[in-house]
């Protein structure tokens, strides 16, 4: 029998890390991520988790320690958010080209200034091009599942890349949700031992992260790009086998009443569930509307996205970040790029919503859908709409 446990999502995520049996955790606390690493520290201190916990002096050091640890062949975890991710940025870029399979949870929070501890996706977008595999979840169960899955993807011999699991700060990290925990036995079966192919070893020394002069740098970057794109096969297989073992299925683009719908709304992260309720109500009112949710941000699922919107005339894209002075939201910008060269493509309308923790409610999403349909028909002088700004 499956038991659901009521538990704060941060704690649940930390317990999922414990189930993955990591060797090293190097982290620095930052709101709204703190409870994750706090609980891991507690588990290690209580002897419930046999791992090395490195309480570093900054996020820059956290990721630096993770590089060394992963290079030594240890299963490695860290977590951060917002300013912490920004401070870590330099080192975040280093892990993918060195092919170090680190797993990091990011409790998405806005970036200063002005100071805000509340959720949006500006931190996530600041690491868009770092070359990490990036999964974004919508609820606590998905956070737990994808944390375990992330280790399997990262350490797969065909991948060897770091993985970020994004979960919205507070909206997810600080709420108590009913969680189904997989058993240790089942996780051990699903998640093989980390067999990093070339761990740091005094008997067989190698140089890592070496200097690459212009004659070879382009080749190193292309090798990195190929590796990231090739990881998709393994991601799909890891999700597939997780579904077989645990009964919960994840896809790069997940669908909700989207088949055949003429109007679609695309969401990413925790607001997706609120949007789903709005979709239910709109459909009840007779509107031909559906939803798609992006689960995989990198590598970007071009094929699945194109397939998911093939019948739609209008696609309304929700962003929780602004690319200032640019095309609007970063997600909509990618989506537009994905369709530009397609013969048949929907009209894309972009809304920036829920910055710095402002809620977009069910009625808000209904308003957005109606407005989006209107803009798709009449056009707009704006590149994007910002929802709910007080004039």
């Amino acid at each position: 029998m499956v038991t659901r446990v009521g538990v704060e999502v941060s704690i649940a995520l930390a317990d999922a890390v414990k189930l993955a049996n990591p060797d090293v955790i190097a982290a620095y606390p930052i709101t709204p991520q703190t409870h994750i690493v706090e609980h891991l520290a507690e588990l290690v201190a209580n002897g419930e988790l046999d791992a090395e916990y490195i309480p570093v002096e900054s996020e820059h050091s956290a990721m630096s320690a993770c590089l060394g640890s992963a290079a030594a062949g240890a299963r490695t975890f860290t977590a951060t958010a917002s300013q912490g991710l920004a401070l870590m940025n330099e080192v975040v870029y280093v892990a993918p080209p060195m092919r170090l399979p680190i797993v990091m949870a990011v409790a998405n929070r806005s970036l200063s200034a002005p100071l805000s501890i509340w959720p949006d996706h500006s931190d996530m977008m600041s690491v868009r091009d770092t070359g990490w595999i990036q999964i974004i979840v919508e609820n606590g169960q998905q956070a737990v599942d994808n944390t375990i899955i992330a280790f399997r993807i990262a350490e797969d011999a065909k991948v060897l890349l770091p993985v970020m699991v994004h979960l919205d700060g507070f909206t997810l990290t600080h709420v108590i949700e009913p969680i189904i925990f997989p058993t240790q036995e089942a996780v051990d079966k699903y998640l093989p031992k980390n067999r990093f192919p070339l761990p740091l070893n005094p008997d067989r020394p190698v140089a890592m992260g070496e200097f690459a002069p212009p004659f070879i740098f382009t080749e190193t970057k292309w090798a990195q790009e190929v590796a990231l794109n090739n990881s998709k096969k393994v991601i799909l297989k890891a999700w597939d086998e997780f579904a077989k073992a645990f009964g919960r299925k994840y896809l790069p683009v997940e669908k909700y009443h989207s088949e055949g719908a003429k109007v679609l709304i695309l969401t990413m992260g925790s607001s997706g569930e609120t949007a789903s309720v709005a979709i239910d109500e709109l459909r009840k009112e007779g509107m031909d509307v559906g939803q798609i949710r992006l689960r995989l941000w990198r590598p970007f699922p071009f094929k699945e996205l194109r397939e998911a919107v093939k019948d739609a005339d209008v696609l309304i894209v929700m962003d929780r970040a602004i690319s200032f002075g640019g095309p609007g939201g970063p997600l909509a910008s990618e989506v537009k790029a994905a369709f530009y060269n397609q013969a048949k493509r929907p009209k894309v309308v972009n809304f920036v919503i829920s910055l710095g923790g402002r809620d977009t409610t069910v009625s808000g999403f209904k308003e957005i859908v109606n407005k989006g349909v209107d803009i798709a028909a009449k056009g707009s002088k704006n590149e994007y709409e910002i929802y709910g700004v007080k004039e």
Partner: protein
Amino acid sequence: MAKSENELTWKDLEIGCIVEAPGSARRYESGTWRSQRPTYDFTKCIKCGLCALYCPEGCIEQNKDGYFEADMYYCKGCGICARECWPRVITMVEEVE
């Protein structure tokens, strides 16, 4: 290495661009970066070796007569040796071709 630098493709790279054999940096000709080169008036040289101590490239060694001289394969022409050489043995001149 079987292939020359310019023949290497992205498929030849090891995972994570690791380098398995030591000494690969020795092959890299950093001397091509140079826009100035050091010239020497060894009549003033007291063989103190300060230039070699300060050289960031570590490419200055004593020649057969015991004078300190930069290896032009590696010398980037930064001029630190000339700056530090207090008997003024070293003068930097423009590198012409």
